[in-house]
């Protein structure tokens, strides 16, 4: 299924999602307001590893949370988060990262920053909210529209910023390691296939 190198990459991106959830990575208001970059993890995994390995890394990350490691933003972990109101967003990470990877891979060997941004927007926000909002509405028995509005108001500005960050990071990483996605390597050296960093 996965080769040794894939296994190592999957483990690293699962761990990356974990450390991005620790407070301090992005702290415009100091340590007291824990804004984290955690949802950047699935976005980056999808755009960098492709759908198969990205899906595996999201599953591995959630398994680590499930066995009791407090890796979710705010030091949450254990089985409780999978039955709470935000559970849909967690499962949304699995589907979302798969969609990002599939969209990015669909246009290979062409790799452009704008398509990467569109892919991350669709998978990282669209798909994640598509699973997160109905579960939130179900658990809290709120009607769908209210839950959608609440979700959008709270998470959307931060998530849009993360789409921008994830796009620039993914483009930079593919410049540094052009053979991470099979098929990308052939075109990456040609002028115009990647924007200047």
């Amino acid at each position: 299924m996965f080769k040794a190198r894939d296994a190592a990459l999957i483990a690293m991106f699962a761990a990356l999602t974990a450390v991005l959830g620790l407070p301090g990575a992005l702290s415009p208001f100091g340590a007291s307001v824990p804004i984290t970059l955690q949802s950047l993890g699935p976005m980056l995994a999808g755009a960098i590893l492709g759908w198969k390995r990205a899906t595996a890394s999201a599953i591995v990350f959630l398994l680590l949370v499930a066995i009791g490691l407090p890796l979710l933003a705010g030091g949450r972990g254990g089985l409780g988060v999978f039955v709470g109101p935000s559970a849909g967003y967690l499962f949304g990470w699995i589907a979302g990262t798969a969609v990002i990877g599939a969209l990015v891979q669909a246009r290979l060997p062409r790799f452009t920053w704008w398509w990467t941004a569109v892919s991350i927007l669709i998978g990282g926000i669209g798909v994640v909210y598509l699973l997160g909002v109905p579960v939130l509405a179900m658990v809290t028995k709120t009607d769908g529209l209210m839950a959608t509005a609440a979700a959008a108001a709270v998470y959307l500005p931060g998530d849009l910023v993360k789409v921008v960050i994830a796009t620039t990071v993914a483009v930079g990483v593919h410049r540094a390691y052009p053979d991470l996605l099979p098929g990308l390597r052939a075109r990456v050296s040609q002028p115009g296939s990647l924007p200047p960093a």
Partner: protein
Amino acid sequence: MAGRGRVRPPAVWSIPVGIYHPGSSVLHRLPVGAKLVALLVTTSMLVLLRSGAVVLAGALIVVAGYALARIPPRLALAQAWPLRWFVLILIPTQAWLAGWQTAAVVVGTMLITVLLAGLVTLTTRTADLLAWTDRALGRLPGGAMISLILVLAIRAIAVLSVLLQQAHEARMARGMQWSARALVTPVVIRSIGYAHGLGEALMARGLDDDAPDPPAAGRGRRVRRG
């Protein structure tokens, strides 16, 4: 690349420890599988039935369970604490829209399911859950690989927290402490370098030997860049 230098123990980012609360109660000694099945059954009942009587029974189970496992009230509260905003918003809105009884059932169901799942986590060692996951995955095709990746990922968290600390200090030195990109790009690039080294170490230990080797892109030109 910036951020080279002596490796300092991470100050902001620390290696996580599990949520497990040590003890010797019946709940601590129950087999992992039994606890997970009990949790699945109870949670499904609560969510599917959603009635006042079921919520009351669930609340009794929660209180009895936490008392039996001798969980300090502070830790029990910590399990429900992440839900505080939901509770504060839901009680008045549900009470206004659907009445007090519905509000109590909705909020009660949410609190009880989260507290019950938290109880399983509090009374089960992370190592035991990992071993149980390992056995469960061992029966699935490709499950052994996921088990290995789980262990690699736990180790990688420690490695990455050091990389993150270094990149954080580097971006401070460059006067870019507000730039998330200046933090994340070097961390991701260096972690991929680390993953390639790890992959080679695993290959040297024969991980890829049992699988027939497809003409994979990258084999033979795994040159470390950077």
